[in-house]
């Protein structure tokens, strides 16, 4: 399958995603420049972490106007897989491809630490390789990762089972100490109603090697690979 990783001015994690896919998972992957048009063939587009345009105004709010984003929106509308990590998640929310917003952490400080995540749904192309309720150890590193949505949106997210990851403690229970940023309902990652766009604050690409402490992040990428495999065999999204 073909992966594209977008480079915005201020992206920091594009190389980490690239290396993880290329060296680790032997995928075909290409870095895409934000000023270019989105060109295929592509199965999954990744918006990586970082500080696009310095995040000076509000995280992600300038990058959504980058020329490539028009193609990303179209790609998503036509059913293409879009994965936003950290700043990428923020950009997807700003672009209206995902519901909700990401605001300043409750602590008002940048937070960098390992967190434990619980996989809430596995009937998506991004989580299908994991078991429901499985715990994943991934790092977070962000200043604006506090997920918020209005009550109706939150209710819809729950109804449609769009909340894919929650922050939990090592025993798998939600708790204020396990939630690194004060996110509403301990939300760490959500997908869109059609389940082909997914954003998460933790960094799967930084948990892709046992030497660095965890390889749980690979689950996200291998899920996508498995989903695309199935699609090629004619069964899109199960």
């Amino acid at each position: 399958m073909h992966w594209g990783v977008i480079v915005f001015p201020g992206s920091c994690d594009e190389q980490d995603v690239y290396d993880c896919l290329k060296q680790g998972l032997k995928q075909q992957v290409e870095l895409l420049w934000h000023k270019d048009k989105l060109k295929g063939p592509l199965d999954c587009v990744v918006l990586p972490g970082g500080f696009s345009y310095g995040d000076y105004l509000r995280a992600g709010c300038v990058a959504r106007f980058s020329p490539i984003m028009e193609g990303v929106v179209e790609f998503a509308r036509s059913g293409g897989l879009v994965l936003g990590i950290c700043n990428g998640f923020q950009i997807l929310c700003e672009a209206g491809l995902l519901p909700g917003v990401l605001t300043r952490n409750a602590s008002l400080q940048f937070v960098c630490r390992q967190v434990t995540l619980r996989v809430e749904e596995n009937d998506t192309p991004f989580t299908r390789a994991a078991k429901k309720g499985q715990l994943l150890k991934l790092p977070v590193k962000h200043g604006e990762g506090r997920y918020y949505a209005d009550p109706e949106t939150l209710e819809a997210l729950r109804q449609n089972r769009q909340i894919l990851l929650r922050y939990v403690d090592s025993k798998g229970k939600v708790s204020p100490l396990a939630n690194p940023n004060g996110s509403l309902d301990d939300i760490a990652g959500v997908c869109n109603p059609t389940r082909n766009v997914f954003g998460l604050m933790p960094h799967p690409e930084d948990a892709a090697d046992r030497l660095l402490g965890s390889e749980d992040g690979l689950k996200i990428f291998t899920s996508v690979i498995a989903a695309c495999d199935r699609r090629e065999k004619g069964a899109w999204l199960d």
Partner: protein
Amino acid sequence: MARLTPKPLSQPPVTPEVIAGHGLTEEEYRKIVKLLEREPNYTELGIFSVMWSEHCSYKSSKKYLKLFPTKGSAVIEGPGENAGVVDIGAGQAVIFKMESHNHPSFIEPYQGAATGVGGILRDVFTMGARPIANLNSLRFGSFDHPRTRYLLGGVVAGIGGYGNCVGVPTVGGELFFDESYNANILVNAFTLGIAKTKRIFRGRAKGIGNSLMYVGAKTGRDGIHGATMASEAFSEKSVERRPTVQVGDPFMEKLLLEACLELVEKDYLVGMQDMGAAGLTSSTAEMAARGGTGVELDLSRVPLRESGMTAYEILLSESQERMLLVAKKGKEEEVKNIFARWDLDAVVVGKVAKGHMFRVLFDGSEVACIPVAALTTEAPVYNRPAERPQWHDEVQKLNLATVKESSDLEGDLKRLLASPNIASKEWVYRQYDHFVRSNTVVAPGADAAVIRIKKTPKGIALAVDGNGRYCYLDPYVGGILAVAEAARNLACVGARPIGLSDCLNFGSPEKPEVMWQFSRVVQGMRDACVALEVPVVSGNVSFYNETDGVAIYPTPTVAMVGLLAKVERHVTPWFKSPGDVVVLLGRSREELGGSEYLKVIHGLVKGIPPWIDLKLERAVQQCCVKAIERGLLCSAHDVSDGGLAVALVESCVGGPERPLGAMIELHEMMRADALLFGESQSRIVVSVKQKNVGRLKEMADHDGVPMQVIGEVGGSRLVIQPLIQLPVEELKEIWSGSLAKRLQ
């Protein structure tokens, strides 16, 4: 914009008051006249004042810095360039340097610290290296001082705000509080980058006719005379200096970094230099000096942020995120195209010229013309008087008989663990991204950080150390201990040192006692570097760290870099499994001078710092590294502040997993407090599988390293027979929570 404003009619006259206001002595002014063979104009005077400032010229320290060993088989570039370069094999090199940003950080903590990080990053990528790790070394005043929390919060947020945004992980550091730094904090920032040995660029202006190109942010009036500020002592009026602190723009830096690294891969470049202290002036003069050429600058072409700037202001501005590069003639358009891709301007502002003059034009007329050597090699060098102060005898006197041994050693241990100098620094480092670039094998919190070198089996270890209290009590020994501990920290993760960078933070060099401290610290560091075979490849000196006449403790900070041949063999400080045997390498002595225990429990900063034998130190380190390389050790942790008891607690509770207890028995005959909390050097607590104890003993005997089995990992308590019996959960809570709790 700038072109529409009227040209300043004339330069202000150079009067004795103006000369003194520029921090130049009468003697220095006479030297300027002699070198120029005429009186300088106002702009030239400004240029001399920054280039001859202590910060840029090292005029008081040069004589001593020559003592450092700077060569080594792997050293590609030692001090004198933007950063030091050390070969790590297979065509790769690491490039690193540490620099101080003390004065700006005290005046405006967030921006001062942020621009400190920005400056050191540029020093490294200017040589063609991709920055892959940051460290920092911080000193603040007493924890209870009213300004400390404000300064600490600002500095940490500034370091994080800049480094995180640029995408360079901050993987380690150190933090120390003491009254000595109440009115003069220390912020030392370190960056390490990696480059191909064939693509390393020096800050050299070569090739007559090649273009000088200005890239990055526009020039404003910020930071004018920053270098001069860094070369003065503080007084209460220092807050008025706020306009000399620059404001950082990490996004601009990130663009600059990516564009410069793209440029490095092409064949358009002759040299690069960051515009740091003394801005455009020092970057051009230094490049010309290293290249052995002249330069010609046309200030009318410099991109300006505000209108009406004079030549003087443009030359001395310290606006951040600017670089100067020498492009090959005819390749200017290609260079511009690369920068345009990143939405950056690249402008030709001058050229490499024949001869040896630093010549500046503005709106068609010459505003400065100075021999390059007059600004660089001919700058004054001082042999300032150095004398041991009389009060020194008094502070070294410590009669242990008058220090009452506590009846509550468990209480003492808890108080030490809660001391902000010993407690976990997680509150600080969780504000730094330490994962970006996906290389971080050992994150902050261990003796040393470890990062892998992608696509190789190798790893790089980094540690930063320095104890101002030891140096105050004995600057010579303190200098030795700073180097020895940094190297020992590397040994604890399994790395062999390959080079170091340092920041030497001292009071006013115009005081004989400060110069004495400086000379002794340098001598001590030198002796340790020679004994441990670690070259000094870069660094900086920060004098005038004093306020209203009171100097800080003499504080060298040593950032050392080590290499692991096989990174997967690295070891962390934390006990791994019940049943493992706890072993002490090295020997405990009855000494408490300069210890954290004496300060926290008895309120004393007295005595002489711990004794050290560099031969033994080296043997202990080598034994530890060899044992790690052979896969014998499960954990290794250096014994330092707080002594053996604190080291054992950290081994029990410091790890990311559940804490583990240990049953320890100590048999030395000495005061119990010295046994538990004394800071004897050359000691490492290791844990090892029972079946490997014999092999470790053979190795220790072979290397002449004292080794004793002191206990076993297991249980839910740390027991040090017969003195301490405490649940590890309680110890963990005190150690890991104290700093955050006190900062809330």
